[in-house]
């Protein structure tokens, strides 16, 4: 008896945008996107066999820069005001408050945000990476390799299936039904009988 294959979900990234929080997981057959909406998770999937493009780009992330810049600026102005106003303890306190915002702002300006975008058939996943550039590159290679493997596997399966059908003397093209075969259009129902039918004969008297 073989052990059941466990569908391990590996967290590969997360994105906190204005109003939405997303988490990205790598699973055996694709990428799962968990969009956290209050206390509910909306799960979407991009399967490896349907990925058309994987792109990699770098950007600043204007909302983040605006947020951290505004707070850093405000606290720095307060620090300067306190410093020149003769209350160094308050200046130190506001300076400490400004530090995380300032560090985040400067780090983003230096490193920027690397984003891997996976374009599926219907949806796309944008996985951001702040300072883990090497991890982003490794993930890009991993997704590309897995996608190529999945797509090669399907191509091989289709080729083998076509070969076996051809060997059995069944042309593969014949088996595919026309597009309207699976769901033929329904004839419109009308209560009135068609005009070209002969009129019904009168019932014989009892």
């Amino acid at each position: 008896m073989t052990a059941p294959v466990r569908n391990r979900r590996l967290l590969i990234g997360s994105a906190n945008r204005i109003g939405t929080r997303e988490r990205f997981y790598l699973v055996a057959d694709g990428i799962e996107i968990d969009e956290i909406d209050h206390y509910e998770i909306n799960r979407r999937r991009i399967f490896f066999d349907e990925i058309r493009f994987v792109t990699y780009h770098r950007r600043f992330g204007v909302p983040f820069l605006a947020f951290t810049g505004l707070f850093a600026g405000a606290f720095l102005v307060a620090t300067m005001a306190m410093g020149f106003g003769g209350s160094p303890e308050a200046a130190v306190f506001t300076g400490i408050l400004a530090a995380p915002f300032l560090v985040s702002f400067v780090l983003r300006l230096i490193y920027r945000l690397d984003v891997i975008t996976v374009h599926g058939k219907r949806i796309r996943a944008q996985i951001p990476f702040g300072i883990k550039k090497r991890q982003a590159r490794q993930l890009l290679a991993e997704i590309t390799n897995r996608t190529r493997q999945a797509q090669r596997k399907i191509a091989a399966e289709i080729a083998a299936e076509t070969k076996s059908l051809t060997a059995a003397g069944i042309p593969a093209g014949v088996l595919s039904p026309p597009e309207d075969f699976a769901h033929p259009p329904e004839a419109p129902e009308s209560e009135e009988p068609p005009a070209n039918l002969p009129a019904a004969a009168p019932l014989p008297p009892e």
Partner: protein
Amino acid sequence: MSSPAEAPPVPGFVFSCPHCGRPLDGERVQTGLCSCVHCQGFFEAIRLSPIQRPIRVMQVAQAGPEGATACANHEHNVSTGNCGRCGVFMCNLCKIESDGMVLCPACFDRLTADGTLPGGRNKIRDYAGITSGLTILSFLFWPIAIVSGPAAIFYGFRGLRKKKESDENDGRFGIWCSMILAAAVTTGAIFLFGLIFAGFSKAIK
């Protein structure tokens, strides 16, 4: 470096710029460095080749009288199997493979609606979020911690079980921290209530 043109207004897959999100002609995007015609942003693209698996359906008339069992939904199609739940004959068009089962569309819809088919579920409760929310609520309004604290611990255990079931590797530490804090706040609330009750009974005597 390739520079894809603006996407033609045709239905189907449209490649959108990863920078600005506006549509581009995916046919002209090649592997390598590309730039968007709208925002002039650069991006590296890797072009892959998804293959649509063809659905082959044999018709009853082609199969001959011996090998012809008609599909329950499509009378002209030869059935290629039975539903794993209700046993109805189904052709390749009707066959849905999910979570190691082969199902007909009706059974797939039913199991998805019931929530018993994990692969068909798209909405899941965020137990980790509920746990942390209840813990914060307990901190903010300690008198209700007697109820919200145990509830946070309950949902925390459910969240841990869910993570174990789906084999997730993240978020367990956060759930444990929330549960420990919830337990601490609940204990504190019980202690405070005890003190109040003791003081109150002393005052009555």
